């Protein structure tokens, strides 16, 4: 072996920032190889995947629309992840946010009140947090693993949404399709910029990045979360209450996912469907990690992961490739990130001849 691996005396700060970039580059190289294997011209494939979706104003708007729920949920999940509290139930929490907000929209479908939208957001936040309460309660009171509980609740949440759209809330004039009525104007988010579909929901996401930044990096409770994650024993030594961390971590994720659910149904979708999210809840986990559990990084990584979504749709239309390619890219991105993080604590050294 020419190289030898040795631990660095100190974790490398440079590598902390570089490793996401290395991961992106590695993902692109592997993507290139995949396109070659599939017999596609890599240049046109790359163009279709990464350029085409965002080469006009409308496309950029779509990118931000897709990035919006990702950054919102990403920041929310980060609150928990920093304390090693693994909420992977954002998909279900998003669905429950949509259910609660959608209920308001359907119930008040004849109202023109300006309070419908705020009311929907409150209801959606409640729905998401309610769904996150369950793993928090079961973890703090019964020591049940939050990963498994929150994951199981994904399925349950999505089934509830499906149940409602197939049943009680099915549009009577919808030709039997499992979907609700189209929301009235008062339950839809206003468009911010003409010529795009950019809706007011993105303001919430940008706000979340800002608040998350201050909360996670400057506040006492942000510090407590970080300590709980880095050294559980140190947190209990310092008297930080772990149960509080669990509640905080899970509820923040549930709140964010619930709000994202509302933004989706009252923004781009405009009604309740059996499926309101193309896996945002899972993709947000990748967003959070690739963003280094830092709001600034999450902002950037949410744009990247959003581009992967758009790219998947684009190659499906242009190159006749299945959009599942998105999932492969997402998985690879996280793999490469985790692998590249090795360089934070270790370095390669040329083996000298002894």
């Amino acid at each position, binding site marked *: 072996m020419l190289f030898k691996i040795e631990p660095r005396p100190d974790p490398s700060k440079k590598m902390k920032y570089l490793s996401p970039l290395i991961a992106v580059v590695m993902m692109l190289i592997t993507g290139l190889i995949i396109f070659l294997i599939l017999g596609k011209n890599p240049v046109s494939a790359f163009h279709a995947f990464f350029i085409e979706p965002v080469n006009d104003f409308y496309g950029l708007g779509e990118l931000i629309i897709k990035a919006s729920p990702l950054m919102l949920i990403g920041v929310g999940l980060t609150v928990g992840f920093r304390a090693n509290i693994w909420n992977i139930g954002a998909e279900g929490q998003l669905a429950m946010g949509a259910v609660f907000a959608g209920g308001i929209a359907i119930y008040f479908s004849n109202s023109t009140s300006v309070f419908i939208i705020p009311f929907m957001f409150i209801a959606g936040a409640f729905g998401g947090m309610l769904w996150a309460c369950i793993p928090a309660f079961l973890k703090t009171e019964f020591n*049940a693993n939050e990963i498994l509980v929150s994951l199981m609740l994904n399925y349950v949440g999505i089934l509830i949404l499906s149940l409602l759209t197939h049943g009680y809330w099915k549009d009577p004039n919808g030709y039997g399709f499992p979907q609700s009525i189209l929301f009235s104007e008062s339950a839809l988010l206003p468009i911010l910029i003409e010529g795009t579909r950019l809706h007011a929901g993105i303001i919430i996401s940008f706000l979340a990045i800002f608040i998350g930044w201050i909360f996670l990096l400057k506040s006492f409770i942000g510090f407590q979360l970080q300590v709980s994650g880095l050294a559980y024993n140190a947190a209990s030594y310092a008297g930080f209450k772990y149960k509080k961390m669990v509640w905080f971590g899970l509820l923040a994720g549930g709140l964010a996912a619930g709000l994202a659910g509302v933004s989706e149904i009252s923004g781009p979708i405009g009604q309740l469907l059996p499926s309101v999210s193309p896996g945002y809840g899972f993709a947000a986990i990748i967003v959070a990690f690739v963003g280094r559990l830092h709001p600034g990084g999450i902002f950037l990584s949410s744009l990247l992961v959003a581009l992967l979504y758009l790219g998947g749709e684009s190659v499906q239309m242009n190159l006749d490739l299945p959009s599942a390619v998105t999932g492969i890219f997402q998985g690879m991105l996280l793999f490469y990130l985790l692998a590249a993080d090795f360089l934070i604590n270790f370095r390669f050294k040329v083996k000298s001849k002894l």
Partner: protein
Amino acid sequence: MNIDILLNIFVATIAAGTPLVYAALGELITEKSGVLNLGVEGMMLVGAISGFIAMAKTGSLVFAVLCGMAAGILMSLIFAFLVLTLMANQVASGLALTIFGIGISAFIGIDYTSVALKGIPPLNIPFLSDIPFIGRIFFSYDILIYLSLVLLTGIIFFLYKSRAGLILRAIGENPKSGHALGFSVIGIRYLAVIFGGAMAGIGGVYLAVLYTPMWVEGMVAGRGWISIALVVFATWRPLRVIAGAYLFGGVTIIQFHIQGFGIEISSQFLCMLPYLATIIVLVIISRNKNTIRLNSPASLGTTYHPATN
């Protein structure tokens, strides 16, 4: 309600539990070595589609199983490389494996969603299968179900009677001491993770080739996660794993029969049952912190590498 329906439910329960038996026994061995692999769902999916394609192309069950195992092993190797060689966080790596597995299985399987496989008839054991009642209960299954019982016996023997099993348990409890005594902690853990991958692969094959038999995107539908929960539920004991797996098989099967009993309930509610059952079971078993602490491998989920010591 007649005895035939009950028998049918029983036999179907065993079949429904078998993918879980494989995946959970595999995860049990992985966890016994101290590694928590949350990528079972992903490995099962990739195993399922690989086995399904192999079956559709060749019609050979043996070949399908081998392909599924190979696919599961490949997936587990990615995970093992990340967490054992590169010392990545096990939770994050497991999640990545699942996300990747969902993506790649959907991608590979795109052309197979409408392919129908011929079902494989259960083994027909001369005389035994024809005995009324007994024959139905004990001798009416397919080969992989019998194999899973052989596997169970093998694992019990391995864990509690063999030196290799003793080493595995020791490594899972205290890798540092294991290293000091001269065992290759990383090597042993690689093997344990690979075994877990192979078993998850078979679990997937069983689901796609024998149980359903067809390919649907994301068809594992949480069974990988339920398998992980089963290992906790079983407090890391193989016999309890299999009991738990059949219990969940039963919950799944009840869905299909409950409406037959004349109970009006929407299908979505019934679909929730296995997931809710998992949560309930987890709560019951985790309630006592000490049972978990005493039975779980002490180093579970923590990174170990000799270079960092």
